[in-house]
């Protein structure tokens, strides 16, 4: 399955990137393809394009703060979880897909 995701934590120093890594690791393990955009202290990295978003089945939003350019995800099914959930039990998020 094609999945996109966004991670963003309050300080943007650590958990944004840890959560991204966790989601990527777990997707690989479960046989999904995933691209994770991080919105942290360095701004938006690995930015999702319109076609990537449109081509995905679902968007995992592991965010604790309001993200930049949220309208890009208006037309796609979203699973919104706290960043902590992606840290603690990422497989439970994928179970919701």
């Amino acid at each position, binding site marked *: 399955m094609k999945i996109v995701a966004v991670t963003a934590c309050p300080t943007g*120093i650590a958990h944004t*990137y840890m959560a991204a890594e966790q989601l990527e690791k777990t997707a690989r393990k479960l046989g999904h393809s995933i691209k994770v955009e991080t919105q942290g202290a360095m701004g938006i990295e690995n930015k999702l394009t319109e076609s990537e978003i449109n081509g995905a089945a679902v968007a995992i939003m592991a965010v604790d703060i309001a993200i930049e350019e949220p309208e890009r995800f208006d037309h796609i099914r979203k699973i919104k979880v706290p960043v902590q959930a992606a*840290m603690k039990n990422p497989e439970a998020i994928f179970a919701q897909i």
Partner: protein
Amino acid sequence: MPLDFSFSCPLPNGVHARPASALEEVARTFTADVVLLNQRTGRSANAKSILSIVGADIRFSDPCLLKVSGLDEERAIAALGAFIRNTLPRQETELPTFAALVGELQLPRCLENSGATFRRGTAVVPGIAQGLIVRAGGFNVPDGLPMDGVADTPAEQRRMSDALDELIAWYGRRASAAGKGIENEVLVAHRSLARDEEFRACLLDAIASRQRTAAGAIADAEARFTKVFSGSENVLLRERVLDIQDVCAQLLQRVYGNETATRSLTLTEDSIVVADSLTPCQFLFLDCRFLKGLVLAQAGTTSHTVILARSFGVPTLVGVQNIEGLADKAEAVLDADLGVLVTHPTATVRRYYTMERQRLDRRQAVLRNFGGKAATTRDGHAIEIAANIATFEEADRAFTAGAEGIGLFRTEMLFLDRASAPDEAEQHEIYHRVIEAADGRAVIIRTMDVGGDKALSYLNLPAENNPFLGYRAVRIYPKFESLFRTQVRALVRASAHGPLRIMIPMVSTLEEIRWAKKIIAEEQARCAAESKAFDKKMQIGTMIEVPSAAFALEEFCREVDFFSIGSNDLLQYFMAVDRADSRIAPLYNPLQPAFLRLLKQIVDAAWANKKWIGLCGEMGGQKRYLPLLAGLGLDEISVSAPAIAGLKAELSRLDLGDCRQLFAAALNCATADEVSALLSKFSAQHSLPLLAPEMVVINADAATKEEAIKRGVDLLYIHGRTEQPRALEEAIWKREANYSTGFGHGFAIPHCKSSAINANSIVILKFAEPVPWNSLDDKPVRVVILMVIRESDSATEHMKIISALARQVTHESFRDSIEQEQNPERLCALLKSKIGC
């Protein structure tokens, strides 16, 4: 025919003990009666009695009349008039101000819920002390001493009089033994009270007219003068109550012997002395070896006791409430940094203060390490780091901080805020003391930079529209030649004591130098004629702060031995910008390429003529500019004392070749922004590394998460990466409040962005005993990776490394390799290979 003299009180704090004592000193040298009348209150005073003068309650601008009658009245009125006009206005005492105790006390996280008792107070001397509570203080007549019913009154009066004379002599001996300083001043002040005419009259009268015993008479005098002082609206006078009590207690002891010294204390172990109030002598009698802290309920911030405590560096809190409940010999911690007395300390409190002591001691050790080293670049080139001072007291502190010399002693402070200029003896004494403190290191003393914005009332200079471009420094010397000669003479004589170099400020033409040199040569010749010792080879230099000097340097080099660039004024004159005007402040930027080219021209000219050149402006104190200044080729940089150790540390990381290249590149920039960008790039490449072996602790120790975070922050403080550990700790806790940074597997990654950190940093603490952290998996942590980033940094190299690290710790293999590595250097190398830090 009595003579009189009218004046209005010039002292903002009124005539308190010190001015009263100065007036008494003058009045008592004449036989004539001297009466001081306060026309506002109608009270008149005997000017030969401090207590009487003080009792007249003279406040600022009160109209006063001084009346003199007697044989030598004409000489007396002339001397007293001169004293009131010239000396009295200088008897002012600055009232130190302390922040009021408002709001809730914010305890550090480690002390919250610690179970100890905290009493707040106003910290008047900082520091942390641990010891046992010892109660002390006050004046009282011991029980059992008769107070009334003297039969032989003349004998009792003699006994009293003899004891008083003995006490006055004792104060004199102790004062001489104490040498100069606050202890001497206190003893001299007490001697003046003891020999006060009113005091003696009051004591003798009580015996004669009311048949009081000596003890009764002393108790009455104590009560009477305590009332005079404590009733005053003047805080400085109220605080003299302790001095009265002190003199009375000493007198009692002189009459009755040592058995009355009931409250004198013998300290036998580390002690925190607690008293309602403590007299200065009671303080001086305490054994310094064991006196670790002082807690006073009553004393104000300007009492002699507090001033003594400050000079002895004894941590002190005043205004502490409910001290009655404190048990003698109870264990306590006095934390004057936090402003609390901690009693009933628990294990948590003890651990906290052990950590605090380690934090402060290790920081001192690191600073001493850099402060004590010669200032050199990484590749071994020396650039002297000296200190700027304005008073002789700062000299000792500067050398303790690691100064390699005094690069600028601004002497104008000696001339400001007084009624007349200091004489040669006063100046010589001060210069001598600085040279003594320097102990062979060079001292550059700048002759007075007065006039302009630094007005002196006794010069009567009119106000100017443009004081910075006006009549000041070397420009006023010819008109006030005797003032300048006096200073030069004091300097020439001081040159006999060590390597003194004299520096002339605000020089813009060759004629000014030649004139100043002529005066110096004449005063040297006078000293030689009078067989007074001086250094014939004393170096003479000038400040370079007027742009014209930069373009006449070849000629200047033929006249003087050295230069020091005053970058503040030089930049302001060169850019034609008033740095106080916020609208044009951005122009006041030392990174302007044109300014850097000016500096280059100055330094090149000095070097070509083999003249020593330093810099003593604010630019020198900023670490950020150091690579440029090193590249410029200065012999010396002179800064305020607190900046010295940091600059030495920074310099030790720089390579002179790199700095020269940087400076050359900066000269080719078109704008200040380009130079700034160049400097930022250089700093990023050469600043403190994100992670270093000293930021790794293998066998860390913490009982709680609070302690673990404190340990990490303390390490950053110890190594100079933060100056605000409390603020940084709070920023970390603020992040922790979102959700725990313990992400499981025995790892936690507390972090924050904060303006309280100077250099982006990673700290790794590996704990011998796991620490509870309320982690996501509810397990304690064995490894803490603390990450702190400067508020202003975002898309930097450092941030990339931090994010890579965050990603890596989610991998078990990475965590395992960190857990297994027990050597800080190898752990750093491991992280470098994996994530590039």
